[in-house]
């Protein structure tokens, strides 16, 4: 069992966990992920490691409560335990001094982009971060990002923070202003990564994306995580998670991510019903 040291909401429905995992913390590099199970009948889900401390023996993950498992995970508090935790998985991000690096992130992707931005900076790059969100409340890790990069730009769908529009609009603004990115890293929802890759393909700016495929084992044994990159099938868990965005078949991956949509809804509903019952029972006990 793996102890949760702390668990705090950092945005609506987004929770940051510090988990005791000394071996993983010691090995982990930017871009790698873990697979966890919340309870003994749970599914295995991959989550990127946002931060870690080898000295103190912990890793940090940021979880958005979307489906059954992540929603359940987000009910856990400090002092509770995870059933299973394995890692670090995947290949570390390839970092070098490209010159100017633009890190584009959306949603919880910002937490995942943070270590890459920091490593990019440490390698000598000028680093610009573009953070996108639906609205101001959903922006996470902005201040941490500001600490490690040269400049942070924000876009929101509703204009409640930064520029009204999409991350691609901000990138276009920067380029119009004369910026010449040498490398782009895009991490976040699939449509965002697809849009960025489309935009940079014509501009011939190398673009790396981090693919969030459905996984089971995470060791290359099952092929659940396969995606098409450059016309070839890859296993994201062992060959990735990062790939050349210009070569990724985003349409296929998008459809694969929805493979269990129906079942996930069913499972989530079951979970919510159970939670409701629990809350009602607790309320009743309080009344008594």
């Amino acid at each position, binding site marked *: 069992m793996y102890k949760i040291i702390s668990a705090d909401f950092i945005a609506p429905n987004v929770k940051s966990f510090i988990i005791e995992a000394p071996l993983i913390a010691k090995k982990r590099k930017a871009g790698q992920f873990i697979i966890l199970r919340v309870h003994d009948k749970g599914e295995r889900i991959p989550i990127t490691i946002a931060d870690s401390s080898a000295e103190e023996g912990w890793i940090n993950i940021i979880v958005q409560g979307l489906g*059954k498992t992540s929603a359940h995970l987000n009910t856990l508090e400090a002092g509770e335990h995870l059933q299973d935790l*394995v890692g670090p998985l995947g290949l570390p991000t390839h970092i070098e001094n490209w010159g100017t690096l633009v890190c584009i992130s959306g949603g919880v992707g910002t937490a995942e982009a943070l270590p890459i931005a920091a490593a990019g900076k440490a390698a000598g790059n000028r680093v610009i971060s573009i953070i996108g969100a639906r609205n101001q409340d959903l922006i996470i890790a902005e201040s941490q990002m500001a600490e490690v990069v040269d400049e942070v730009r924000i876009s929101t769908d509703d204009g409640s923070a930064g520029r009204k529009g999409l991350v691609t609009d901000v990138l276009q603004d920067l380029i119009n202003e004369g910026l010449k990115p040498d490398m782009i890293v895009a991490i976040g929802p699939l449509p965002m990564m697809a849009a960025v890759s489309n935009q940079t393909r014509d501009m011939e700016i190398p673009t790396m994306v981090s693919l969030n495929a459905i996984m089971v084992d995470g060791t290359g044994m099952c*092929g659940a995580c396969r995606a098409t990159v450059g016309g070839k*099938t890859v296993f994201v868990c062992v060959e990735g998670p990062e790939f050349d965005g210009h070569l990724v078949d985003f349409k296929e991956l998008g459809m694969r991510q929805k*493979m269990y949509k129906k079942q996930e809804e069913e*499972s989530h509903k079951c979970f919510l019903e159970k939670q409701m019952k629990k809350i009602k029972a607790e309320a009743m006990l309080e009344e008594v």
Partner: protein
Amino acid sequence: MIREKPQSFNTVALKERLTIPRQSMPEQDPFIRSTNFFEVNLGLTPEQAVIEAQRCIECKKPTCMDGCPVNIKIPDFIQLICKKDFLGAAEKIMEDNSLPAVCGRVCPQETQCEEVCLVGKRFEPVAIGRLERFVADYAMENGNGSVKETQIPQPSGQKVAIVGSGPAGLAVASDLIKEGHEVTVFEALHEFGGVLVYGIPEFRLPKTILRQEVANLEAKGVKFIKNFIVGRTMTIQELMEEEGYDSVFLGLGAGLPRFMNIPGENLNGVYSANEFLTRSNLMRGYEFPEWDTPLYRAKHAIIVGGGNTAMDAVRTAKRLGAEKASIVYRRSEEEMPARNEEIHHAKEEGVEFLNLVNPIEFIGDDQGNVVAAKCLRMELGEPDDSGRRRPIPMEGSEFIMVVDMVVIAVGNGSNPLISQTNPEIETNKWGNIVADADGRTSMDAVFAGGDIVSGGATVILAMGAGRKSAAAINEYLKSKVGSSA
């Protein structure tokens, strides 16, 4: 080697033995079992076991033993069954086989011990596998598996790391703990047993058997660590240099699913057998939503392949409620590598066999779900390298089948994780680790065995390889003490 014949306890006259019919094993009714995941075979009764054992004609040269990859003393244990000393019989088997309850269930006996049984030349062979299973189960129920109270060995002060908890790794653990070494098994997944827990379904090999085997080893002092990937969580070097392991055994299994490289293979609803079976067995997808892992429940599932894996997958699809579950195999039934019993059981359960058929494309709808398979009919030509007749497509035979799930069960390559992180461990062109007959690899103090060396094979061969490596590791550790003293 001259073998002493075991003392006979068979009370039936020799001539009469041949008139005893082979005892059939009680099993769940095919119609009922095709809707549940409980074990199909129910095991012989003690009375049946004794009668079956009495069919043995006690050959001077027991060919059955040569047919067994680990040379279990079959004549000896059969006589002990005649004597009704079932625990003694189990003990006899365990001298050579550390997982008899498993092997009694999944070994391809018809191509091993039973194929060469002399009784089988004229009649049906002695049901050696069923007898093995019977005594192993009897011992588990009546002697807590660890039949004889083994003496606690003198600690050697040496440490061995075993990577992978499949039959190869478990066999090494079982042998080395007896020698007083400190033994730790590292497993990537959250359960122990390798293919035996993630691949082979509950209806063929109940998980409780593996848990019992692991618990027995734990009781003897073997340490089991799950969720630990050697090569990622820690490297082989770190295990040896920082954690003080004197030797490492790699029992990594095959574990890299092969696909066919045809269009449409990444459509939703197209699985590798490993994924489909892992979701069902390890993750208990068949109990969704009680268990969280989702799994397709198809109307018409096709499973491409003809091995045990294909049979397991097709029978699982059937149990998940498929109206039609079909095997699509490019050769004929004669060439099928699956155990006879699995083919027979699959047929009884209503599985359709489309032999001499090969898919060339999977077709999807606009949501990316597989809806059809385009196939060709095949005919058999000249024998190929494997000695089996080569399937050749028949011209103009293309046809389309409506399907909503496809499982690709055309074999496994070897997992590249360790060789990626340890290029000094020599591999061959298929990615298998190169090891000598005793499991020595090109890296000092590192041994390997099972599917990672042989390519996808069988439980008994993996176990046998593990036992040979265990002996070699033991020698190596002794010589290490000798040379440093």
